[in-house]
Structures are given as C-alpha cells and as structure tokens.
C-alpha cells in the first residue's frame, strides 16, 4: 500500500533564465534570485503569490547558475513550503538513459518534467516565470479558468498602446476568448499583454507538449509554439484580465523603476500587506543603526545597515554601510554594500558586497535632469571595488574593479 495525494493544481516556475539584459547583475546569480525591494528577491513574488493563493506544490525549474537560488529556497520553509506532501522542489535538467538534455525552451522545460507533474496527478498546472513583480491571487484566475471550461487561460494586463509591441499580445473576442496571439507584433491589434502567467488543464497541456516534442522545428516555447498551435487546433483559450501592479523587471531600467515604485505611495504595490504578505528568507542580522550624521529622506532601509550619511529616495538591503558624509540618492544598494566617507551614489544599482571608496562619485552626470527623464542607471557588479576618488559616469555598467575614472 502507498499513499498518494492528488493536488488540484500545482505550479511550475520557470527560473532557469539568465536574464542577460540585466548585465553584470546576473553574472553570478540567476535572474529570479536578484534582490528586490530592500529585503526580497524577485522569486519571492511568485512563490508568495502561490502560497497566498493556496497553491502548496511548486516545481522550480532551474538551469542557469542555480547555486544561490537553490540555497535561498532551501527547504521552502520561509514561504511555508516545507510540507509533507508537496512544497517546493528544485527541478534541474538531468540525464535520462544515456544522455542529458538542457532545457531548450519554456515548454521543453515543462516537457522534461512531465513525470514530476504526474506525481501529483493535477487537474491544472499553473505556469509562472521568475521575472515579474506583482501580487496576484491565482486562485481567482483558476476559478475563472474552470468557469470558462478553458483549456488554457492566459493572464493579461492592459498596457499603453505604444508599448504593446514589446509583449505577447492577445486578440480576444468580447467573451475574452483568445482568437489570436501575436508575439511582439509591429502593429498590435490589442493592448492586452500576456503576463507570462498561464493556467492549463494538465491533460490538454501534456498532449500538446508530447506533440511539440515530435516537431523538430519547434523552439518549444509557450508563446511561440504551444499557444499558437493550440489556437490553430481550435482549443479554448481565454484571457484573464488582471488589474493591479505588474512589472517585467527584465532590464536594468525596469528593475530600477520597480524598486523605486515601492517608495511611491501612489503606486499600488504595497509590500506591508499582512493578508498578502511577500515572504522571504531573513538575514539574521541585528537591527539597523542610524548614526549621529544620518539624514534620511523617503527611503527603505533593511536590517543590519549602518547609516551615517545621507540617504534619499533609495533602497538599502541588509547589511549596507554608509559612512559619514556619503550621499546616496535614487539608488539601490544590495546586501553588504559599503560606501565610504564623502562618496556620492546617484541613480545607481550596486550589487551584493560592492565597495565604494572614499569620495567616489557613481552616476556622475553633468546635465540637469529634465522633463521627468532621469539620467541612465549606473550598475556596479557583485563584489566590485570602486577605489577612492574614482568617478563613474551615469549609465556605466561596471563588472570589474575600478581604480580611476571610467
């Protein structure tokens, strides 16, 4: 005898991407592991959404630099995902028979884990990705999927028409049944963009995954292959409109913006939201200390920081140290960054354990910011040292130690 626990729905989180548009930020970690919002990482959002939506079984598909992500997720306990049945599972590519196969496309990654999914015999599978910031109740979407008796439901959000061309766009009828799906169309016929959140009826998805595997020309991608094929075959695909904050943080600029959004009370992305908490693994650091010479304006500062300079419109992750006379503005300082005396950091993202020497100027820009546009974001990579006195101009992407002006 054996016990078997069926799950109505399980989630598969695609966390294998490198996120190459994030440059030096993903040199050492996969995109979903990038710190966000002062104490979180990007992956905390889909994980917390799942748990808050009552979905307790999540396969996390990893491939690129998974060490930090795996260690971060660990047993899943911070997200209450350390369960007897279900919980979080890291699913790397593996060798089967004689040879191994890397995950080639999003759909191929799911294909290779059919066996895992079948363990839970789910009716529905929720497909998520690890590069969006949003709070969403997937359970409502599942309800909609069931009501519509859909084969696949795609979460969509209205985007400005001029940006629609950057997304996968749905052309749906009045009932929201999807008639056409265009990946990054030049002339979008709709401004309903795919959020990269799909619910499939599992048996249907499995059928299409198996078919897709036979198609040698397929890139095995949901947006490019699976969904267009399903539409062609007349399957029932519905759009589910999400009305809330949602942001793809796949670029330096959008990552910076989404972080800044957490400081803006007009943006509907409240992190301090007990009924819909975003969980994360805590740092075990003591509380922050604010020194004699600190000046704090509209900023978010985490445990373990030591602040003795000026911090404005900035987000400081755990263990950041700002010495006397230093000025940080409109910047994101990831865990363990040290900024020495009299340094200036403006419009910058400094990755973990970056060191900014005395009197350094990061994000230097001679012209005034005009017309709501800000200077380009400067990025300093993980553990990079910017030596005393150096000047790093706005927009520079610094992956190696700097000893003088870039």
């Amino acid at each position: 005898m054996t016990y078997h626990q069926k799950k109505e729905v399980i989630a598969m989180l695609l966390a294998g991407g490198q996120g190459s548009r994030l440059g030096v930020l993903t040199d050492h970690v996969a995109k979903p592991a990038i710190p966000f919002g002062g104490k979180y990482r990007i992956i905390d959002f889909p994980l917390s959404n799942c748990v808050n939506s009552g979905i307790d079984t999540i396969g996390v598909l990893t491939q690129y630099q998974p060490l930090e992500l795996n260690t971060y997720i660990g047993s899943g306990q911070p997200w209450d995902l350390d369960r007897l049945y279900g919980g979080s599972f890291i699913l790397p590519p593996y060798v089967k028979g004689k040879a191994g196969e890397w995950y080639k496309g999003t759909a191929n990654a799911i294909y290779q884990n059919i066996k895992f999914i079948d363990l839970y015999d789910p009716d529905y599978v929720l497909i998520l990705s690890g590069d969006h910031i949003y709070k969403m109740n997937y359970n409502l979407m599942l309800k909609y999927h069931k009501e519509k008796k859909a084969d696949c439901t795609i979460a969509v959000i209205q985007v400005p028409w001029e940006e629609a061309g950057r997304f996968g766009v749905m052309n749906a009828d009045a009932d929201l049944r999807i008639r056409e799906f265009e990946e990054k169309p030049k002339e979008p016929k709709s401004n309903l963009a795919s959020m990269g959140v799909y619910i499939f009826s599992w048996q249907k998805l499995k059928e299409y995954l198996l078919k897709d595997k036979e198609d040698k020309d397929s890139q095995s991608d949901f947006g490019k292959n699976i969904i267009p094929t399903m539409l062609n075959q007349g399957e029932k695909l519905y759009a589910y409109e999400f009305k809330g904050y949602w942001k793809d943080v796949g670029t330096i600029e959008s990552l910076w913006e989404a972080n800044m959004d957490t400081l803006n009370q007009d943006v509907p992305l409240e992190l301090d939201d007990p009924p819909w908490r975003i969980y994360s693994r805590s740092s075990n650091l003591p509380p922050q200390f604010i020194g004699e010479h600190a000046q704090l304006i509209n900023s978010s500062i985490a445990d373990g920081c030591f602040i003795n300079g000026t911090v404005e419109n900035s987000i400081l992750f755990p263990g950041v140290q700002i010495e006397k006379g230093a000025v940080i503005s409109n910047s994101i300082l990831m865990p363990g960054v040290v900024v020495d005396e009299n340094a200036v950091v403006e419009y910058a993202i400094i990755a973990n354990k970056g060191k900014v020497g005395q009197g350094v100027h990061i994000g230097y820009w001679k012209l005034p910011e005009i017309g709501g546009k800000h200077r380009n974001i400067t990025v300093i990579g993980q553990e990079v040292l910017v030596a005393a006195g150096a000047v790093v101009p706005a927009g520079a992407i610094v992956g190696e130690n700097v000893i003088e002006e870039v």
Partner: protein
Amino acid sequence: MNILGIIFSYSDRENLRELTKRRTLASLPMAGKFRIIDFVVSNFVNDGIYDVSVIARNNYHSLMDHLGSGKEWDLIRKRGGLRVLTPYARSDNEKVGLYRGTIEALASNMHSIRRSMGEYVILSGSSILYSMDFNDLVEKHIQSNADITAVYTRDLNGFPTVPMGVSILRFNDHNRLYDMTINMEDMSQHGITWSTEVFVIRKSLLESLVADAIAYGRYDFLEDILKRSVNNLNIQGYEYKGHLLEFSSVAGYMQANMNFLNREFRGKAFKRPIYTKSKDSVPARYYEGCQVKNSIISDGCRIEGTIENSIISRDVRIGKGAVVKNSIIMQNTEIMKDVLLDHVILDKDVIVRENRRLSGHVTYPVVVEKASIV
C-alpha cells in the same frame, strides 16, 4: 564533547515592574528585535551546543510563543534540540505553581535532563547577559579537575556598582571557591569577584547533588549546593573578561539596552549571529521630514518623526512631529503626531495619542504597560 545547556528563564532577584507582569524575564525585548533569551540561546548554538533546555516557571506563554519549535535557533534536532520545561500537574488533584527554588526546578525536570546525551551541563541565568566561549569554559573545567566551575567577573565591569542581589564569590589562591555571599549593598570597591550566574558541572554530579538536596528539603542552587559544598567539592573559578549586561531593575534594563548604541559594543555583541523569531516584516521606511540620530531601528517601522538615542523594535509607527528620545519602544506600538517621549519604555501594542507627553528620568524611566492607550 556533549554539552547540555540549561537556561533559567526567570530570576528571583528581578524587579522589572510592569515589564514582567505578563512575561518571564527571558522573553523581555532587547536591542530592538531580539529578546533576552535570544542572546543566551545563540551563545550556546554559536558554540556548537545544540542541546538546550529552558526552564520556565510562570508567565511563560510569550516565551513559548517566541521560541516555537526552535527552528530559528537551528535547534530542531533528532538528538538534543530545544526543550522548554514547564511545571505541570502529574495527577488529577495536584496543583502546581512556583518552584521553591532552582533546585526544585531542576528536580522537577530531571526526567528530561536525564535523557539528554550531554556529559557536561552549562547552567545559565537570564538576568546577566554575556558573550562567552563555552568550549573554552568546559575545557578549562575539565583541565582543572573541578567538580563545579563558577564563572565570575571582576570589579565593576562597566557598572557603577556591583548589581544588587548577585553572588559575591571568593576564591583562594588556587582559584577555588571558599565563600559566597549575596550582594546587598552598593559596592564599588576593587577586587570584588561576582557570579555571572553561569556554572559548569558534570551531568551525573548535578543529578546526584539535586537528588540529595531535595531529600534534605533544600531548594536553592547557590545557597544550598554551592555555598554548602565549598569544602567537599572543588569549585573552581573561571574569569569572564568580556562585557556584561545586567537587568534586575528597570533602570538597569534601560541602561543595558542603551549599550547597543555604542558602535564598539555592538560590534562585539553581534560578532556572531544572534538568532530570533523571524517576522516577515518589511524594511524600515523613512519618510520626508523624519530625523533619526544615534538609534537602533528594527524592520517594519514607519518613521515620520524624530528619534534620538533610542531603541525601536519592530513594526513601530512614529508620526509627524513626534519626538522620541532616550527611550525604548517595543513592538507594534503606534506613536501619533506631535507626541513627546523622553526616558520612556513603551511595552508592546501601546498607542500614544496625538500631543501626549511622557517623560521619565534615567534613574526612573516611565514604563507604559503592554496594550495601553495613552
């Protein structure tokens, strides 16, 4: 080396007024997001001692809530781990209350202590905080062939006087204890050696000493075991040279907290991690117009006012125009607009309404009881 840590979560010599009305000493908040017990338990865990029993007496629900399964202190273990030992009625018509002393507390929990794999026991109180190398302590205990090792500190160790109620330990030239008295006066002379309430003893010896004492109706470890045994047992001293914090009074508790505003002190206290219950709070948020100086701020705070020389715990809101100085503000407290607080301890869940002013003195801080509305 197998070591069992036993922590007494309460102290008979404390007078912390409203602060310990609904909680035991060890669950008192400390340094913002921590509680006293966190420092004691973390000292054990950081020294690789994963078998820790906490003896509770009364008012221990907050302590049990805080420690939970022990997960956050890395103390869910198949062998050892964390246990909170509480008094309980064995039969239908028994009543339980206070232990009559430390020995009775140990005796009542001997069934659990006996089951530990520990060969040596480190006993610790909760009213004196230290940061000690327990492995060195036990090594010295073994090398010195001591029956019991009593940890002491010398002179004032940063205190204005030797704290009231602590044990003055007197050692001979061979570092052997020959006398013990309770400090009842404001002593400030040199050459005094007093107990940090930490002891090492072989577990089997502890078991038999406790059984003996109980048989003779003796209940206090210091008076009835330590003091009575100076001739029969080789009780050696071990000097602790680090910083100490002590809190048997409200002023002492305040002073102990204020130590954490010192960068050097903080550096030593947090050299190794101090574990505590995790809370999923958001990072602290500082708004336009806030002024914060020389203060400890915990996560979840939302600050619009002014803070100086204060210790602020988690999830505290401080309104526009409010000024908080030289104070300790515990968790989930709301301080509204234009409030002024100086030398105040606000317990958990307190609300201070607009424009209220409270001020105490360094020798007598104002204490506002848990869940009060001012």
